[in-house]
């Protein structure tokens, strides 16, 4: 795994139909070499189809796909310089770990001995040296996952594809493995395309995130950009929960806008918003709760749930219901208590109306 040659990926106006159903109407993406890009979205949004077209497991109905500058639109999967880690790992149950890793090398024409040496090296790289003789069924979930990664990486692909690689691991392992994958990618510098529906995972591993909805790109950007400056209600809600309420822009001050939410005035970055009616996305943790009578937006607690390190509230206000996460556990409000809501400086964004 020494001579890595990270490649770029370009989708040009790709369309994919399955029969009469259009999975992807018109998709264009550019991925820089050496970056880890996540395709994120709810199930059925076309992210896996996109990945499979990149792998050559599906062919686009129209449009072009380029890998490392070469047009691969009509190239079958086995002739493409990409490799893939499957959601189910897809380790061959009748071959041991070493044979699994050596399989791709032998398919590419390496002599058996060299293939084995490189496979051994690949297993070492993922911390499984000496486990080569084990059958997949004799490995733990995390180990199987690493074999799958090693199997894909030993081929020195221009692009590594990962299809929800963590979904079969338990929560704790998932956190560790995602760090390992990110580390490996940074260390070896390969291009990776990562598919997931879990926004935490996406935020943790990506250089860039492409959020997809109904086969289209809903928003694309760095993790921080997506979380802090969602362009739509969908993104705001998908990238961590958000309360979306309508507000009115009452004034501008340079880059900032002054808004009014049911009488509560607030100042935040204006972005594209001009004036008049707008929508405001508020993170559940960005709402401050004060006892009734303090300045702010009046509301009434509907439900309260104690969850150890925080309390979750459902609050009714004149502009709509708010879902609030409050970390001041020692001071909790009982249902049907009147409260006053204020906003913090972070975690608010104006979005498309």
């Amino acid at each position, binding site marked *: 795994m020494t001579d890595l040659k990270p490649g770029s990926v370009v989708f040009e106006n790709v369309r994919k139909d399955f029969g009469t159903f259009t999975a992807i109407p018109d998709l264009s993406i550019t991925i820089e070499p050496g970056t880890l890009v996540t395709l994120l979205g709810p199930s059925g949004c076309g992210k896996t189809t996109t990945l499979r077209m990149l792998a050559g497991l599906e062919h686009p109905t129209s449009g072009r796909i380029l890998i490392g500058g070469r047009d691969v639109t009509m190239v*079958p*999967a*086995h002739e493409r310089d990409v490799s893939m880690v499957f959601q189910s790992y*897809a380790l*061959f149950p*009748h071959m041991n770990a070493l044979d699994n890793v050596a*399989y*791709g090398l032998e*398919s590419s024409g390496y002599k058996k001995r060299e293939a084995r040496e490189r496979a051994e090296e690949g297993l070492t790289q993922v911390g499984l040296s000496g486990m080569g003789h084990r059958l997949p069924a004799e490995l733990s979930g995390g180990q199987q996952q690493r074999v799958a990664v090693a199997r894909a990486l030993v081929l020195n692909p221009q692009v590594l594809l990962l299809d929800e690689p963590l979904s079969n691991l338990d929560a704790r392992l998932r956190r560790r493995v995602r760090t390992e994958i990110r580390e490996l990618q940074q260390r070896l510098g390969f291009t990776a395309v990562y598919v997931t529906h879990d926004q935490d995972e996406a935020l943790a591993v990506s250089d860039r995130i492409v959020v997809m909805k109904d086969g289209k790109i809903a928003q694309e950007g760095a993790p921080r950009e997506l979380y802090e400056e969602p362009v739509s209600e969908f993104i705001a809600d998908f990238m961590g929960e958000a309360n979306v309420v309508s507000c009115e822009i009452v004034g501008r001050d340079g880059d900032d806008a002054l808004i009014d939410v049911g009488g509560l005035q607030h100042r935040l970055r204006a972005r594209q918003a001009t004036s008049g009616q707008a929508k405001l996305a508020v993170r559940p943790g960005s709402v401050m709760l004060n006892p009734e009578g303090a300045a702010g937006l009046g509301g009434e607690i509907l439900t309260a749930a104690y969850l150890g390190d925080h309390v979750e509230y459902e609050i009714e206000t004149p502009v709509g219901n708010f879902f609030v996460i409050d970390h001041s556990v020692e001071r909790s409000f009982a249902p049907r208590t009147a409260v006053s809501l204020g906003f913090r400086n972070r975690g608010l964004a104006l979005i498309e109306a």
Partner: protein
Amino acid sequence: MLSGNKRLNALLGLGIGAFLIVPWYRVDRGFFSFEWPSDFLVSSDLAPGLLQIFAEGRVWLALALALFLIGGSARFMTDANKRGRLLVVTGSIGILFMALQGLAISFTGWAWTFPETTFGALPLGQPAMGAGAIVTSLIFVLFIAFGLAERGFMKGDAFVVGSISILIFLVTVFIFYPIGSMFAGSVQDFDGSFKPDGFIRNMQDPAIWSLDCVFGGNRCGVAWRTLFLAVLSGLGSTTLGLAFALVATRTRFPFKKGLRLLTVLPIITPPFVIGLALTLLFGRSGVVTQGLDTLFGIEPSRWLYGLTGIWIAQVLSFTPISFLVLIGVVEGVSPSMEEASQTLRADRWRTFWRVSLPLMKPGLANAFLIGFIESMADFGNPLVLGGSHGVLSTEIFFAVVGSQVDPSRAAVLAIILLSFTLTAFLAQRMWLSGKNFATVTGKGDSGAHAGLPKSLSLTVYGIVLPWMGFTIVVYGMILFGGFVKTWGLDNSLTLEHYARAFSVTFQDGALVWTGVAWNSFWTTMEIALISAPLTAAVGLLTAYIIVRQKFAGKNAFEFALMMSFAIPGTVIGISYIMAFNLPPIEMTGSALILVACFVFRNMPVGVRGGIAAMSQLDKSLDEASLTLRANSARTLRKVILPLLRPAITAALVYSFVRAITSISAVIFLVSAEYNMATSYIVGLVENGEYGIAIAYSSMLIFVMITVIAGFQFLVGERRLRRENRVSGMAKSSKIRIAQEKTA
């Protein structure tokens, strides 16, 4: 596109070989005897394609050569799209031309009249296609396939496109072409001219359609008789099968293991053997008949020879099949349904009638249709027991080999039979599909099945026990019958029959197979051994394509294949001799026609087994292999086949055994040189040599048990200890073997 060029190079090389170094036309003494190279280039019959064009004057073949060269020139083009189109176009025209010239030009010139009037008479005709012509046809098919692959069809996978094209080509040649020829043959005269008189006369024949048994008290037409028999056999075997299934799954019957052994019987029993055994019991000189005569003075009669006898034999033969199907159905009824019913204050009787039985209904209907189709297709039992009361399948046979040779009548009868079985098949597919209530979900379904109500359990025991006894007696007769001198007349024990059939002597230090059976025995073994791997390969490849590939027309492809399995053997037999007796493809009298017949008749085994096994393999395994730089051929070889080993073994064993026991199609296709065991035995029965026939049959059964046990032992030894999925497959494939009989 390097790989594209590689495979085109191979095709070009193959094509040059086809035109230059093998005889273009059929070699009389057989291509594979390899006597032809010695006379090659000397004898004009053996001339290769190029010489046929330029020296022998068969100028029309130049068109094939030209198309081949134009298609081949694609090799030197660089634009994938353009060369793809060129290949597809030349390939399509090429294969069309090959078919047309083969059909239109026969031994003496034009086979049809209209080209003769347009182009004028041909100075010379042509014999049947030989190696050169066949290879050239295949090359055109592959031209289409590779052309489509280069244009991105099936994700550009040449192996898959090639396999699909070749399979479609083979199925067309070996299933649809013969059936089509049969239809054509029904309206043709001996010289091939259109003459529907025979067709019309036979279609209106009262011997086929008369309903006299309802109105006039006479006998009904053979079509109605066959239908009537099939319905009764279907009902009988379904009822008995259900009783057996209930005993095996819902009672504390002590010999359940033995009951399951019953399911192996239909696989290893040649189809006419039951009829034979019944003759020994109830025939005029049968044991029971004689016994009743001496004890009670009941006059021996010929009641067995007719529909009653055939019905008994068929119910005996098909009950195990129906049992096998219904075990799955009865076990598939979720116990929690029955428990729910019981907690809702229903007693066992009500639970059975209102819950269990309705849930089994689609399964019962399925079992009935299977029995119905099997009965329609059955040839062995009616042949042995039918006498003058024939059914459609035997009537077809006698229309070809009997005193009144009437191919048109045979074709008409075959068409009638075919329409009955296809209707039943369509009913099975359309009406029953999606109506399966069997509720095996894969989630552990806890709970226990409700016991049977007392009266019902007494009834099923009352049915099952005597029938089991009867089955044991029948099979006992088969084993014992070979050792008795002459049934009814001289009941002394003897080894004479075995000696005559299977004697071996030493002469001049060498082994000489002097027994009369050896010749057909070894032919049978040889042909079964050749066709078994071919059957398994074609079947599994088809299964792979059906399960793993998506393409336009896939449903039609699958449907056509499955439908071909509902074609009775007799129909296949008659259509093969009608299609392959004359150019363009002439195979009758050769071993090839037997092999082709077995491969395409037994393919369902491989297909169904393969489909079932392959659907259990996660698709991501193939995809992983593909993304790991392995093409689909390597994926199939390295990943799928190793994981399918149990299914492969099952397909191999089953197709081997079926090739040995099959009779209905075989009896039309055997020749003096290639006689099969079953048709030899039927010949013995017709000559009244029951002793040898029975001895030979038990020998076959013994051989098949050995083969099955041997394979079972080998597979058992090598059972994958790995994933549940795989070992579960190994277990179920055994059961599946027998289910294939249901095709």
